[in-house]
């Protein structure tokens, strides 16, 4: 009865990716909306130079704080820079920071988590202790401390955001990997006399891809938010680089009343982007692994 009683059959989880993608669009209207946002961001990133009307970094004093109109659809900021242009280029920064941090963080976590689960014993205990320690720090506190140590700036922000992701992902992946370690195909691989490296890379890692991918998408959203928060605190990406969090900082807040377009649009951009990544991640979770919970 397994196939019918459990609406999600193990077979469903193992369909090829395009079939899963198609299913996702059909069954996940919210998720598809998220995917659309993500897609838009990616397009904005790639074609920023072609679609944005102005130079994102050049000040234009004559247009200081212009309200939205036909020339500047979303208005201009205190330096007379077009907000739409900066939002489009900001997508690039957000995605760059988000993806790099998420990818490096999740991947390091993946390797650490799988190795920890596979080898077990003392290695596992030590890794788990370290993970505990880092996880006891709130994300923003850890990120702030790292930025304070390394200094602000795009690369350091990425590092700061990456570090707290590693243990988060390691923990989730480890629990999945522990379960997988108990699944007979790993024993089968051992009985076939395969080496540790082969077993980890070919037989375990591919099978923790579901939690990994889910963590990855959530991390992108989280990283974008975290970058915005750090930039807001003045410890993130620095001027004149277009970045959403940075656009909300300083003048944006101070002049919010007479120039509300300055804080509103970048804030919306952040919200929409994170919203998109979360919806996307949720849908991915539903499709890949309904039982995995975000922590």
């Amino acid at each position, binding site marked *: 009865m397994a196939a019918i009683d459990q609406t999600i059959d193990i077979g469903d989880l193992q369909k090829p990716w395009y079939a899963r993608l198609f299913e996702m669009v059909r069954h996940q209207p919210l998720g598809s909306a998220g995917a659309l946002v993500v897609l838009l961001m990616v397009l904005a990133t790639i074609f920023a130079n072609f679609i944005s009307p102005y130079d994102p970094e050049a000040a234009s004093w004559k247009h200081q704080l212009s309200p939205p109109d036909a020339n500047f659809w979303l208005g201009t900021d205190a330096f007379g820079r077009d907000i739409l242009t900066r939002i489009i280029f900001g997508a690039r920064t957000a995605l760059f920071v988000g993806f790099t941090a998420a990818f490096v963080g999740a991947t390091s976590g993946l390797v650490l988590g799988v190795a920890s689960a596979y080898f077990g014993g003392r290695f596992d205990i030590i890794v788990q202790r370290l993970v505990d320690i880092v996880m*006891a*720090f709130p994300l*923003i506190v850890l990120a702030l401390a790292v930025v*304070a140590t390394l200094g602000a700036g795009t690369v350091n922000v990425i590092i700061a955001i990456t570090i707290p992701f590693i243990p988060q992902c390691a923990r989730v992946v480890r629990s999945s990997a522990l379960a997988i370690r108990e699944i007979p195909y790993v024993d089968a691989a051992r009985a076939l006399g395969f080496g540790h490296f082969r077993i980890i890379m070919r037989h375990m890692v591919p099978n923790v891809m579901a939690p990994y991918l889910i963590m990855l998408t959530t991390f992108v959203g989280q990283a974008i938010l975290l970058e*915005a928060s750090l930039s*807001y605190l003045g410890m993130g990406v620095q001027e004149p680089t277009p970045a959403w969090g940075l656009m909300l900082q300083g003048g944006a807040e101070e002049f919010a009343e007479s120039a509300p377009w300055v804080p509103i649009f970048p*804030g919306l951009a952040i919200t929409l982007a994170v919203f998109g990544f979360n919806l996307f991640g949720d849908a991915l979770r539903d499709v890949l692994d309904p039982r995995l*919970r975000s922590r």
Partner: protein
Amino acid sequence: MLPTLVGAAILVFFLLRAIPGDVCEVRLAGSGLYVDEAEIELCREKLGLAKPLIAQFFDFITGYFTWDLGDSMWTGKPVTEEIGIRFPLSLQVAIMATVVAVVFAIPLGAISAIKQDTWIDYAVRTFSIAGIAMPSFWLGILIILGLLIGTQHFFGTPWMPPIDYVPLYEDPLRNLSQLIWPAVATGYRYSAVATRMTRSALLEVLREDYIRTARAKGMIEKIIINRHALKNSMLPVLTIIGIEFAFLMGGLVVTEQVFNLNGIGKLFVESVQAQDFAMTQQLVMLVVLIALLTNFVVDLIYAWLDPRIRYG
């Protein structure tokens, strides 16, 4: 718990010392006034920054045994006193945010799960994901501006929440009129997280065999949800509430900036920016301790809710 604390202590101590510059530079030269280099050296000496790192670390650790957590390098007052002033405020906001979160999250999450894939579900999910997506500082800015502009528009005089703290027991009305806004701003995200967890946990529990058993026994839906499903689904929700609470204590950093709250988050940013090592490291340790204690409390409640753990 202890190994984690020790690890955290080592990590934070050396992380901070890796940062170039120190509190004396800011304090004495920070305003651009002329300052003698010798004065700065004197300041370093007085604060013990000239000692070797190991000796400083030893002082830091032995402080825990003598209950001498050091003095703030910025104000010279005991760290305990400085934190003591700020802690109640942050705790109050965190608790209020938790209340806001729980009050909204559980019913919303439950409705969303029960009405899965209906427009109610979609609405709740959209609302809750928006809460996670929206930067809380941005929400804070919008709240303050909304209040200022709104009150001026409707009542003629602009009103904003108080910007200095009065304890709840002194003036409850003023206290609440200050803290309810940050509680809402952070509570929204918090409740969004908890709503999602409630929903997914409840959905999962509703698929369990024992719910089918309860249905097969002819129990009415209300009892099934309230007695059989909610209690089980509260376990993961509780965990997430605990985690978020611990994170909130550290994560108030940004919200406290927006609302000018004199809490430990603001103190943390200030002490990081001023390189006040003594303060920063103790604040981090406090936050870590809170995280661990929250875990511990969650475990206790867990055991109370889940008989498998109670006797297991």
